[in-house]
């Protein structure tokens, strides 16, 4: 793993991403906090991209196997997270307005 992103660029991306995250979750009705947490949690499984990269670049079967296990963990998070969020949100009946 030699060439990384230039560190200053990576830090800018980190900074702007964090600021975006702070702004996105401003006003949320408490009723949506559990689904929101669950949805955000599914998104954090995006680390599956790193697992895929690892599998493609690992020089030995051992490291590839580690990558495959990491991929399985991440996908468990992603698939389970999105499905469970969908299950929760499917139950919010829309009668009247949003609140």
């Amino acid at each position, binding site marked *: *793993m030699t*060439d990384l*992103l230039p560190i200053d660029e*990576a830090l800018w*991306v980190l900074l702007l*991403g*964090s*600021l*975006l*995250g*702070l702004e*996105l*979750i*401003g006003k*949320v009705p*408490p*009723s949506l*906090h*559990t*689904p929101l*947490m669950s*949805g*955000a*949690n599914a*998104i*954090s499984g*995006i*680390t*599956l*991209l*790193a*697992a*895929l*990269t*690892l599998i*493609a*670049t*690992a020089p030995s079967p051992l490291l590839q196997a580690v*990558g*495959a296990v*990491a*991929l*399985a*963990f*991440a*996908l*468990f*998070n992603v*698939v*389970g*997270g*999105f*499905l469970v969020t969908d299950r*929760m949100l499917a*139950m*919010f*009946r829309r*009668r*009247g307005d*949003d609140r």
Partner: protein
Amino acid sequence: MNPSSLLALGHAPLDLAAALLLAFGLKRLGRVSTARAANRLAALAMALAVAGLLLHQGLLGWPWILGGTLVGSGLGWWAARRVAMTAMPQIVALFNGCGGMSSLLVALAAAGLPGGTSRIAMASIVISVLVGAITFSGSLVAMAKLQEWLDTPAWTQRPSRHLVNGALAVACLGCSALAFTSLLPAAVSLALLAALALLLGVGLTLPVGGADMPVVISLLNSYSGVAAAAAGFVVGSRLLIVAGAMVGAAGLILTSVMCTAMNRSLLSVLFGGALGTGGQAGTADQGEYQNITSCSPEECAMTLEGASRVVFVPGYGLAVAQAQHSLREVAQLLERHGVDVKYAIHPVAGRMPGHMNVLLAEADVPYDQLVEMEAINPDFPRTDVVIVLGANDVVNPQARTDPQSPLYGMPVLHVEEATTVFVVKRSLGAGYAGIRNGLFECQNTSMVFGDAKQVLNILLQELRELGVGKVDNRRQSPVLAG
């Protein structure tokens, strides 16, 4: 070839689209009308991100990819289908822990790749391992506590736990430093770091009381975002960094919102120990209840018959008893009788903010009958009957009146201002947080002892026998007056 050059080249359009959709998804998850579509949008974004990556790097190592995908997706699908709505917080904790574990494994393996590791790469690896491990073990402990596989034993409340955790933290820092030197092979230092950080995750989470667990899960959710962002530094993926940072920041906001709702500071949640056990809560909380009035469901039904405004306060106990459906039936009967029925929802009712809304929605309770705390509190003096079902701490008047109470300052539902309060409860045992509740001793409070579902079913039967809800028997009908 190396991963960074793969990632740095041109699948930018797909990555950008994915980042944009993820941001939109997170944003729109915050409104009821758009939330479901937003969740699907985020899932689509994730699929785009994967497609972009695979287009670029090809299907190298495809048997491993296929295997990992089948196992992970299959188990995730199975778990998400099978889990009961009452167990939502636990399953979110479990999913979250697995995300952390994934970042941890990727970082460990990245350290083992040939070609040397720069200091910056090593720093990213160390952060990913440390945060990933704490996320994993902490989430599992949180899950076990919510599932009630683990309780909070008194020995975890000893002040010496801070020494143990402090020592573990210092040891983690030591191992992190070692990873930059050549004293030990990097893999050994990192494995040691992982082991110590796993222990630290347990040590930090174990002393936290069950009632504070949602805050911890929310915080760990934020951590798993940080771990993902660090993994993004390791493999050089902008998308991973952006998404991880977004989740990390959003998780922090959500955590602080929850702390505010419970009137707890994050520091006291993390380091203050459990409420109601040893620690800070040994004050006026123990001791027998006095002047308790109890009544039967039949008497409760007769009071309800004459009421015109009724508020139900559902809590986690209701969900555990699977009594949401019985509750809805009682409410519908009363509505047909001309009674104004509302459900008062405390921000942290259930085991997580919003948990109770999900549970009641499952029982087809119309969304517009659920009223949040600030909106319903001014109405209690004009309410005839309040029925508290499986809620405890969120209706504790001492949170407003007794500076000695560990709950003092927490916003609560002012149910004691209603004319009559019924508290349906199995026994006089302490609540989830183990704190004495003065509501039970109020003059206008009657305890109805029993399982919430059984009580509601008897109530339903009694109300029917009283003729409540029959069309020719509506209270408004003038015929009845004579």
